[in-house]
């Protein structure tokens, strides 16, 4: 079981209340596909991913960004049991989507950067630390059902 301090709980909920899901989700996914282009292998059906401009304006990429944010919101609402919350999603990513689990933190790193850009100086080291811990727990839960 993950031990969250009161400050971490408040901080995570605060971050998610401040960020715009419609902006952050799509921006994080498209940043991941641009900065780590090998991750495009999982989105072959998304159409034009030819360059940064195409990726940023691709509606399927944007839609997927929102799906990811909705998944994260479930974790925010169930911080004491993220592991169970993501059991099905973990199985899905492992058995059906066959995503290399090392890629989860690549998206996590891009999310941190997009949130940092949105919050600016409010993304202090302490806030950043809480967010990074949250991401680590999410990634660990998503990895859990692999093999």
């Amino acid at each position, binding site marked *: 079981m993950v031990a969250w301090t009161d400050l971490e709980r408040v901080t995570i909920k605060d971050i998610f209340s401040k960020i715009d899901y419609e902006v952050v989700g799509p921006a994080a996914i*498209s*940043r991941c596909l*641009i*900065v780590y282009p090998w991750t495009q292998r999982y989105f072959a059906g998304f159409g034009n991913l030819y360059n*940064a401009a195409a990726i*940023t304006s691709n509606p399927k990429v944007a839609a997927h960004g929102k799906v990811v944010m909705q998944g994260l919101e479930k974790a925010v609402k169930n911080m004491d049991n993220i592991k169970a919350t993501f059991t099905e999603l973990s199985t899905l990513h492992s058995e059906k989507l066959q995503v290399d689990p090392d890629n989860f933190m690549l998206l996590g*790193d891009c999310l*941190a*950067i*997009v949130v*940092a*850009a*949105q*919050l*600016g*100086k409010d*993304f*202090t*080291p*302490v806030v*950043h*630390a809480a967010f*990074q811990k949250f991401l680590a727990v999410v990634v660990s839960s998503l990895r859990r059902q692999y093999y």
Partner: protein
Amino acid sequence: MSLSAKDKETVKAFWAKVSGRAGDIGSDAVARMLTVYPQTKTYFSHWKDLSPGSAPVRKHGGIVVASITDAVNKIDDLAGSLLTLSELHAFTLRVDPANFKILAQNILVVLATMFPVDFTPEVHMALDKFLGALARALSEKYR
């Protein structure tokens, strides 16, 4: 993943834009690394104060970012220009090279907070590649 001519141009142009805040960038990146990845504190047990904004953190941030600026100026020969620093990290400091990636990510986060508009995905990628190349050059003399 070597640096293309375009990557080098992108890095140089962006670094020129941000170097006015170099001190803050370095200090914030080191502070973040120590706060977000507390295992990195193990390398600084000789400091009196590891909190963000403290004198040792600010000073060390300045040293780190000055080296990065130097590397940007010598971007065509990173291995050569970082030889002495590599020996320092390999034989004296003995920093596990995995930590280079951690500090790099924190530098990128700081740049995102300070320059949200200029730190586009393309700039992010070029800088990520550059910091990766820097880390490889720093690891040269390890074994």
